[in-house]
């Protein structure tokens, strides 16, 4: 079972890879809309990637209003 820290780190790594930003440039409290310069649809694409990676299903509503990696990680963690 992953810890929340591990889940968060894996999300940061996946986001860096998916949106081509240098590894290590993202932090748990970063606002991913602003930091990655993405819109709500691109966020949904990222969620699909994360679902595949973690093997969980996240209803759209569960991530409504979430904009930082840490909160996103806790939502995923609760479903692992």
């Amino acid at each position, binding site marked *: 079972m992953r810890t929340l820290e591990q889940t968060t780190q894996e999300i940061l790594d996946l986001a860096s890879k998916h949106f081509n930003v240098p590894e290590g440039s993202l932090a748990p409290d970063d606002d991913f809309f602003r930091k990655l310069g993405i819109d709500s*649809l691109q966020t*949904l*694409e990222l969620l*699909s990637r994360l679902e595949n990676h973690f093997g969980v299903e996240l209803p*759209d509503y569960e991530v409504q209003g979430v*904009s*930082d990696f840490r909160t996103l990680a806790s939502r995923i963690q609760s479903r692992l």
Partner: protein
Amino acid sequence: MLDLTKYQSIGAALNDALDQFANKVCLIEADREREKERLTYREFKERAYPLAKALQDASFQAGDRAAIIMTNQSKWLISAYAILYCGGVLVPLDYKLTPDELWQLLKHSRAGSLITEYSIWRQLAAAAARSAATNLKTILVTEAPSNAPLDGAQRWENFSGQGEPVFVPRKRNDIASIVYSSGTGGRPKGCVTTHENYLEQGHAIAQVIAFEPGIRYLSILPTNHVVDFMMGFLLPFTCGATVVHLRTLRPEFVRDAFTRYKISYMMLVPLILKNLQKGLEARFAALPKGKRAVLDALIRINRALTRDRPRVWLSRRLLGQVHSAFGGHLRAFGVGSAFIEPATLQFFLDLGIPVANSYGLTEAGTAVSVNDPRAPRTDTVGKPLPGTEVRIVNPGPDGIGEVAVRSRTVMSGYLEDPALTAETIVDGWLMTGDLGKLDPTGHLQLFGRKKNMIVTAEGKNVYPEDIETVFEGLPVKEFCVFAANYIWPRRSMVDEQLVLALHLEPGQHYSEDLRREVTARNNRLLNYKRIHGVVILDEDFPRTASLKIKRNALAERLALLDRATAILPL
């Protein structure tokens, strides 16, 4: 289709539709690739009646207000019909708002009943602002897990009355719904919409966009929005068509739904249309050279053959693979809510997929003008709908002025705000605050805004007053939020931004600490509501005798600054 001009209320029209089309499928609900529900009009009625009866047993009266906060799903429409059947007033609220904002609107609307989903209720119930909505007596929650704490709510699925409910007739001028166009920041704008507004709007749109049994409408815009309420409920239902709900907006599942459910129409916002365009362009770019050359040639032929008007049947033959990616039954996309570049509209038109670009606002009862999908123009938002008058107020030499609308679809006013109503509806004309002109063929073109607000590519209206509270307590002398285009008007509706005007304390500088504080507060806002940058003004903001900021005077003062250098991006 039912003749909506003959009905007194939406409820009465829906009653007839449920009987007339009893054996046809009215609703399909899917979650990702899983179909969850498929209801005929008869089954829809059988679901709604016990709910209506239970509401009546709980003393729900004509004119009582009932709020719905739900994602797009069958229970949204079933609940709405039950409320209308009982003569109630719908208060559809945006599930994307924060719990505190929702409680504020529940309080303002004085809704006595609330119907919501368990996942939303969990957050609402935990919010401190819950104590504000004292009118709320009945709370129904859908899809609650069996042992979940309901915090004073009841299960929607168990809220069921025995026997037939009594239909409560309403008159055309009675209130059908209160739809909030904005106002979560302190001055709620609850558009009071009558049965006549909806019936006339449905009648007018049906003359431009054909709905009939067999038509399938993919509903992805939130149903609380007037557009989906009309296009994804009232119109298809009164025509015997089918509404498809998809409980996710993930692009891969939306694409899949087109083919799975043979979709005929879908209303969307520019952001999604552009995303579809990007996806297609990427697929075209990945084609081997030879195939790409053939595709380009076919697109050119299609463009030539459909130059005067779309011929979807012909385009489906020429560009079969492109059309089959959209299920092969798509008649048109509808787009509105925000500005869309003509190039994107042309991209789809070249593929033989018409896009009915339109213009509307909640206050006007949905659409003001719509491009006829049989003859769409990419440079306009179409002609005013039948029964809707548009005039341009105080036009300049270029013919551009404020768009004013007169129609039986225009709301009766803002709930409990006669002053704002009087400012907005002048001598029977709805002053939209949008700048436009009518071309010689009667098509409306839009050029920008007069009002202090922005519309995002996701179709979200954001008013500065609604987001200012997040900056309360900022360590500066005073502040005020503006739409940048309101300060520095420009003839454009692209890349609209909000800015925070700051007047610093004497000797204070716009330090890195202050920038960080502004950013931290900004990040508390939903992403589409955030400010883009800061503008510093080293003088007192003009204020009224009661010390309210005079926004117009302040905007005029800020306009003297150079936009290019004045906005300091966060």
